[in-house]
């Protein structure tokens, strides 16, 4: 097999591959600190037992499913109360229950979402506590 103009084609290919992989090698070696969602809110400070409605690992990986489930139950099925796995009951409300404790949405929700590059559309309609509004 013979490639015409091999040197320039191969050089061009190398440049292309270099450009395409630029984000990988440019950031290689950089240590990006894992996000640390802040739990420093007045309500959480005052809590003896700092336990979310479900265990933390579950909340960390499934909060979006839980919120979707709440949304559908409240808006479409007219339900109001969530019975957690330990039997405690909560009003299914983002503004009324979640943000009661997590009033620092920018430092709690925002830090992980920024890190992971996700942009949930919650705050276009749901109201953040005033301290987070720029």
């Amino acid at each position, binding site marked *: 097999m013979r490639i015409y103009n091999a040197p320039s084609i191969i050089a061009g290919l190398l440049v292309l591959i270099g450009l395409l992989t630029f984000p990988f090698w440019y950031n290689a070696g950089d240590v990006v600190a894992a996000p640390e969602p802040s739990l420093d809110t007045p309500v959480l400070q005052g809590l003896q037992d700092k336990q979310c409605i479900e265990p933390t690992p579950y909340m960390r990986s499934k909060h979006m499913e839980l919120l979707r489930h709440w*949304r559908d139950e409240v808006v479409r099925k007219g339900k*109001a*109360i969530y*019975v957690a*796995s330990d039997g405690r009951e909560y009003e299914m409300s983002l*503004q009324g229950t979640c943000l009661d404790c997590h009033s620092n949405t920018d430092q709690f929700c925002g830090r992980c979402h920024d890190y992971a590059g996700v942009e949930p559309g919650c705050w276009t*309609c749901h109201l953040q506590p005033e301290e987070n509004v720029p």
Partner: protein
Amino acid sequence: MKMNRRDFLRTAGVWVLGVGLLPLTDVLAQGARPQVLPGREALSAARWAMVFDSRRCREGCQDCILACHRVHNVPDIGDVEEEVKWIWTTSYEGAFPGRQHDYIDGLRSKPFVVLCNHCANPSCVRVCPTRATFKRSDGIVMMDYHRCIGCRYCMAACPYGARSFNFRDPRPYLDEVNPDYPTREKGVVEKCNFCAERLAAGIPPACVEACRDGALAFGDIEDPGSEVRKLLNSGHVLRRKPELGTGPQVYYIV
């Protein structure tokens, strides 16, 4: 390993069956889903309905409108072409076109409060391509703003003009924000929800509560002993455009 055709088909069949049944594990796992309950104080009805008594409504009064719009963060855009409204007043002719004549002097000046009729057969629900608007079992025609894509089919379908489109972000047009209720965003359609969120908490609709003259009544129309049913027999009752077959559930005593 040597395998004849029959054995191959048998084994393949078992595999296909196994993979086909895999999704069932999800269905069986649903039993472990967390439990949800209706609100402790929630008001319930077979069919919610409203009665407006024009004999009692005071001219120039805006209490019901202001209360509703304050509670639900309905913006005051100020431009008629882009206005957002859940409840408003109109004239007799505006509310009941085709039922007027030239000599209805007494009714002409009277305000009629109009809002979403929470139809028994809602045309908006039929046309919504995402089922963002739907009818609950208690008759309330609800909006799920999460699903609304802003196509405005429902606005074209509604014969009462009860729906408004958010042409712009409503937040700058709110004088004061009720922190207990969300706002809407640019690009969704909104309307009256018969105060479903208040009923879930056991309180009557904001407009009914705000009316000092008792011109608005709310209750279960299927309950023969309810206030709304009794009111229906206390005067001549109209509904808006009943000939369209939508089955409006807001009744007007004229």
